């Protein structure tokens, strides 16, 4: 097969070096982001699994006004602020209300609650009883870091440098892009195996990874992009920028408008359904509900395409759709489509469940790619050209890295188990579950540092994770009575989660007992090798070569350099 024209010698080495450095620096964070992010794709299903109160059938006749009235009765909503009502779906079969509460000292506090569509049972989201899906979701942008927005910012930078690693990676691999694509070997030297895995999986996952690098950077670093624009172009007026994203934000309401009996949300929802057959109402947000100039914004989608969602602005007095403030599905202009496009791409909400499963697999492939990158880094440095101290350092970094990353599998099984074991009526149970998860992850990491063989780390974590996984569906059955064969019919999302853990447990144990081989000797550099390293035959790395290599030699060494890169 034809080789593509690659980079020049100096550029190749310079980019190779930055690719390695950038990759190693972000690898920990990137692995956590992709691993937690893959599970977070199924956040709503997990929430249904973790919380028995969420296991309800979605009824066709929903009473939107009653749900809102119920929340208003409990929280005393301030309707001059945006009040959001998410409608029940199969994923999340309850109303979710996000609104503002005016406190006694006239400060405004955001509230969030679930409302069951049948008995109007309210669950406060600021003090949730259960947290697994949300903990994992927040973890995927390091939201647990107590400094506000710092985690989001860090994850944004990780995404940015991931983009850098992707572009530089493709550039250094360019020459071998075609020839090496079919070289997915699992035999030979470890360095070759890791290298082939890294490059081939990198090429396969390229579109997926590129999309996530860019969209991830968008969510994490949006402020960095907008800040100078807002100040240099709009004199610090953020409203003007929001209007460019969503025309509805140009609409204003009068806080002191008289009370008015406008059309009910239920009537208006029926109107929307008639006008847009095949579309679902995702959510409706109301402003000045119960006043004369009340507005309702309907977010609708047929979930069949990446531009198919829309936002209809409606006057509640007479149910007239204000077209110039609305985004009509599939007819929105480029400018009004961009942010939605990025959001759908990132949250994988444009292609149904199969797409999410595919994304999950691709995310796991990416995780494997990140690990193989670190192992290339270490294996390529495990030779006498490096001093014993350097090699010990490389070994420690790799060991820490593998311990943190590979222990995520048992740690995730642990948080699912903790959710079932901690009693439902315990005070502050959500933070107990989180403590168990984070301390458990820490403990699992520390235990893993005692294993000096990477293959042993891998096997032991798979063994632990596999055993814990198998307990997850059992614990769910015992704690909530929702065994797989029952939930399969009543709440499929719950059954999917149970089945996922069952199969991941079986797979892990099959790998442990029938596939994986653990090396007999330690990966830790041995003292004896120091002498080898300082032996006079091995010239120091940074010393200049005595002769300029002949052109033919350059070509040869470049070729060699590339086969192992």
């Amino acid at each position: 097969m034809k080789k593509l024209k690659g980079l020049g010698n100096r550029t190749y080495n310079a980019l190779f070096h930055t690719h390695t450095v950038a990759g190693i620096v972000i690898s920990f964070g990137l692995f956590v982001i992709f691993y937690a992010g893959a599970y977070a794709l199924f956040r709503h299903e997990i929430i249904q699994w973790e919380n028995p109160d969420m296991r309800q059938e979605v009824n066709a006749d929903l009473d939107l006004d009653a749900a809102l009235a119920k929340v208003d009765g409990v929280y005393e909503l301030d309707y001059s602020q945006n009040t959001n009502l998410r409608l029940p779906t199969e994923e999340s079969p309850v109303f979710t209300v996000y609104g503002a509460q005016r406190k006694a000292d006239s400060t405004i506090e955001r509230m969030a609650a679930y409302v069951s569509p049948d008995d109007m049972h309210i669950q406060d989201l600021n003090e949730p009883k259960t947290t697994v899906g949300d903990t994992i979701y927040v973890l995927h942008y390091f939201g647990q870091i107590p400094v506000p927005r710092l985690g989001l910012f860090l994850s944004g930078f990780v995404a940015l440098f991931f983009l850098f690693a992707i572009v530089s990676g493709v550039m250094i691999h360019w020459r071998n892009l075609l020839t090496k694509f079919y070289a997915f070997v699992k035999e030979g030297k470890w360095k070759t195996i890791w290298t082939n895995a890294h490059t081939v999986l990198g090429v396969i996952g390229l579109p997926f990874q590129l999309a996530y690098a860019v969209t991830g950077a968008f969510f994490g670093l949006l402020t960095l992009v907008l800040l100078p624009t807002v100040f240099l172009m709009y004199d610090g007026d953020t409203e003007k920028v929001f209007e460019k994203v969503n025309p509805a934000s140009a609409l204003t309401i009068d806080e002191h408008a008289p009370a008015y009996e406008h059309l009910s949300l239920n009537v208006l929802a029926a109107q929307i359904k008639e006008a847009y057959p095949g579309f679902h109402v995702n959510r409706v947000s109301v402003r000045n509900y119960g006043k004369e100039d009340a507005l309702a914004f309907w977010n609708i989608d047929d979930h069949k395409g990446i531009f198919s969602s829309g936002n209809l602005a409606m006057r509640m007095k007479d149910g007239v759709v204000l077209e110039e403030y609305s985004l009509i599905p599939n007819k929105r202009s480029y400018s009004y489509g961009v942010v939605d496009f990025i959001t759908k791409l990132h949250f994988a909400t444009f292609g149904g469940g199969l797409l999410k499963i595919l994304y999950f697999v691709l995310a796991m492939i990416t995780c494997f790619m990140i690990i193989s990158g670190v192992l290339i880094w270490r294996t390529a440095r495990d030779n006498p050209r490096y001093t014993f101290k350097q090699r010990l350092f490389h070994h420690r970094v790799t060991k820490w890295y593998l311990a943190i990353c590979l222990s995520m599998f048992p740690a995730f099984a642990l948080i699912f188990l903790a959710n079932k074991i901690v009693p439902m009526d315990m005070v502050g149970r959500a933070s107990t579950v989180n403590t168990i998860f984070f301390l458990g992850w820490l403990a699992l990491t520390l235990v893993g540092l005692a294993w000096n063989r990477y293959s042993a780390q891998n096997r032991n974590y798979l063994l632990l994770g596999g055993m814990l996984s198998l307990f997850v569906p059992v614990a769910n059955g015992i704690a909530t009575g929702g065994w797989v064969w029952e939930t399969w019919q009543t709440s499929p999302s719950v059954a999917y989660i149970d089945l996922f853990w069952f199969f991941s447990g079986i797979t892990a144990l099959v790998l442990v007992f029938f596939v994986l081989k653990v090396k007999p000797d330690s990966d830790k550099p041995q003292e004896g090798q120091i002498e080898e390293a300082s032996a006079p035959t091995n010239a120091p790395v940074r010393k200049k070569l005595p002769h300029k290599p002949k052109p033919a030699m350059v070509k040869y060494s470049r070729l060699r350099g590339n086969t192992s890169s």
Partner: protein
Amino acid sequence: MPAKAKYLSSGWVQFSKLMAAIFGCYIASTMLHISFAKSVVDDTPVLLTSAYSFFLVWVGLMIMVYMIKRAWISWAILAGITLIGTGLMIL
């Protein structure tokens, strides 16, 4: 297989390149986008395109910084982009 050390810059040059890659390229990407938005009639599509192109340009410039051997040339190019951008913005 690790990159050959003789091709790599060292010490201050490396630090200078890192600063150029993070801050220099950020500022250049900002000015490139703003000046472009200022010089077209309808800036809305430009502004929204920057939601993704900003990062692509930023990373592209980063790659440029590392492809050019001397750090000061990279700095000069970045400064040039920024100055031209600022000029277009003020005009």
